[in-house]
């Protein structure tokens, strides 16, 4: 029971963190690593810093739009 509560709390906070990050255009790095490991094990993945810079550049590149 105690263990369960702890797990739920951790999930809640990671959800909040993911939401805040995606609000500013940064998807989950863990999901990216998982994807690379599953689908492209032969390609070296970007480091967390590279990933952050890549996503930042993408957010403000061509085709980006935000509302009034």
């Amino acid at each position, binding site marked *: 029971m105690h263990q369960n509560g702890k797990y739920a709390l951790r999930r809640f906070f990671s959800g909040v963190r993911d939401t805040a990050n995606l609000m500013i255009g940064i998807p989950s790095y863990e999901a990216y690593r998982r994807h690379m490991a599953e*689908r492209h094990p032969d390609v070296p993945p970007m480091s*967390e810093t590279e990933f*952050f*810079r890549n996503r930042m550049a993408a*957010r*403000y590149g061509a085709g*980006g739009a*935000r*509302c*009034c």
Partner: protein
Amino acid sequence: MQILSKIGWALVALLAAAALGVIALERGEPINALWIVIAAVSLYLIGYRFYALYIARSVMRLDPDRPTPAVRRQDGLDYVPTNRYVLFGHHFAAIAGAGPLVGPVLAAQMGYLPGTLWILFGVILAGAVQDFMVLFISMRRDGKSLGEMVRMEMGPVAGTIALFGAFMIMVIILAVLALIVVRALADSPWGLFTVAATIPIAIFMGLYLRFIRPGRVAEISIIGFVLLILAIVYGRDVAASPVLGPLFTLTPVQLCWLLIGYGGIAAILPVWLLLAPRDYLSTFLKIGAIVALAIGIVVMAPPLQMPALTKFAAGGGPVWSGNLFPFLFITIACGAVSGFHALIASGTTPKLISSERDAPFIGYAGMLMESFVAIMALVGASILDPGLYFSMNSPAALIGTTPESAAAAVTAMGFPISPEMLMQTARDVGESTIISRTGGAPTLAVAMAEIFSHVVGGQTMKAFWYHFAILFEALFILTAVDAGTRAGRFMLQDLIGLVAPRFREVSSLVPGFIATALCVGAWGYFLYQGVTDPLGGVNTLWPLFGIANQMLAAVALTLATVVLFRMKQHRFAWVTILPATWLVVCTVTAGLQKVLSSDPTVSFVAHARKFSDALAQGQVLAPAKSLEQMQRVIMNDWIDATLCVIFLFVVISTVVFGIRTAIAALRIDRPTATEISGVPAE
């Protein structure tokens, strides 16, 4: 269980009806703001549970088993299957901006009732439907953008017209947003200092994120937030300082040039230095302030001071001119229906949806949430004393600039207020004057200060909360100006690229600089025009913005209608035809009145004629002060009128293309929509 659920929904419906009844049947007694909140929430629940799910099941026939772009093209970067709640946050943060905060404040001049009804019914039948439909269409086409989809479904000419329309609306949005910042910060050293302080704070955050601890957004955002609060706290001393105070006390024209220069420089700086960190700060601040406002309204439960209907519901109001139809439906765009959302619902969101089952929650409910922001803004404007509201929102040309002249003029309008009260309110919020602070943002800031200080800090904190609210609005408006200039630059490069393909190269410097300069020049022109307009500019530019925004919504809903015809789902097409027709009627009527009406307060052309006639006789008409100013007024009028004609052309030609494509689809006995199928690409 089923019976229980039926009883539950019947109760929600009863609650909605009761709350609407209280709101509409107000008889002189001020009603409580909570009735509006209750009416809104229960109507949203009903709209989502019944209409959105009806659209999902019968009209779109969403298929939870069909792989979404995020699943099929998963790359961990742009295409990522995302938890629905996380994605909801992303989508909401992208659609919510200054629009839903400003429009409802301006609309309050007619009383709270017309605006409330339009926001509530507009969102359920038009705005949320549009966002949801565009999201659906893009989700079935690999997350393609609105322009590309119009091209795919309606042909290249219609696609180019839509792209051009999107660029024009961007220009007008940027101009009107910048104008709101100018109006809020002119002659306000405290406000200007705190907003200016965000630039070094953001640059510090940018350097930290780049070189010291890359990617640690949470910790640096907290540091940035603390610095912001310090800037607000010490802003009071800066404003009071005999040396620094005058340095931050600028006229509207000075601010206008500063903003134009800032827009040009900010848009060519590397994004990590200024734009991105400030965007982070403003996004979190925006979400935080919206949540705090919702809590504040519920805790305070303020009574509405504004009557349900003012005499200006029949037209002739000082805040903006024109009658309830069509101009109310133009003034409140975001919050009821916003064409701009079509660009976002066909942007990053469709690439992140993990299952088609999530689409109603993201597309439809996301817009309901923005509508709630608009409702809160309307409540904010309506809890203020109407005399104060009209003193803040009427142009100086009508009410003068002294407390005595403003109080006399507004009292004569039928909303009694004393000069002392105007001075006291200005003192409470730490400003030298609040008279004719048009543009909506300062009015909302006074209301937010009222609500927040009721919950935290009391009277002594009012000035802090006022400047907090101004900062919150200015921060994300400046971010929008910066990001919008960049987006506008790419759109322009795309458009010019149709003629000169070399212009499309996003990486080469010269086209980028030219397109940026053209984009800043375009919104800068309208900003300057608005700032120097003696009637305040808001009443010229806001209707243009509204027409442009609703025009884009009409284009998006026309696309949605065409797609339904091509899917052979045309018997359900009334779902999009109904709001599309309403928007076409509103934008065309408003556009025509802006050009053809004989009333110079409504029509640009009539206004230009009036001034031209006077000029021919060598007369100078107020508010112009010289013959040279007369000429400028006339030229601005003709440019604004031309813009209206362009908007009319965009709407009407899109509708014609839409009808032609729909009829063609009707004649073919199989679906012709160009969906990208669920088969993996490899």
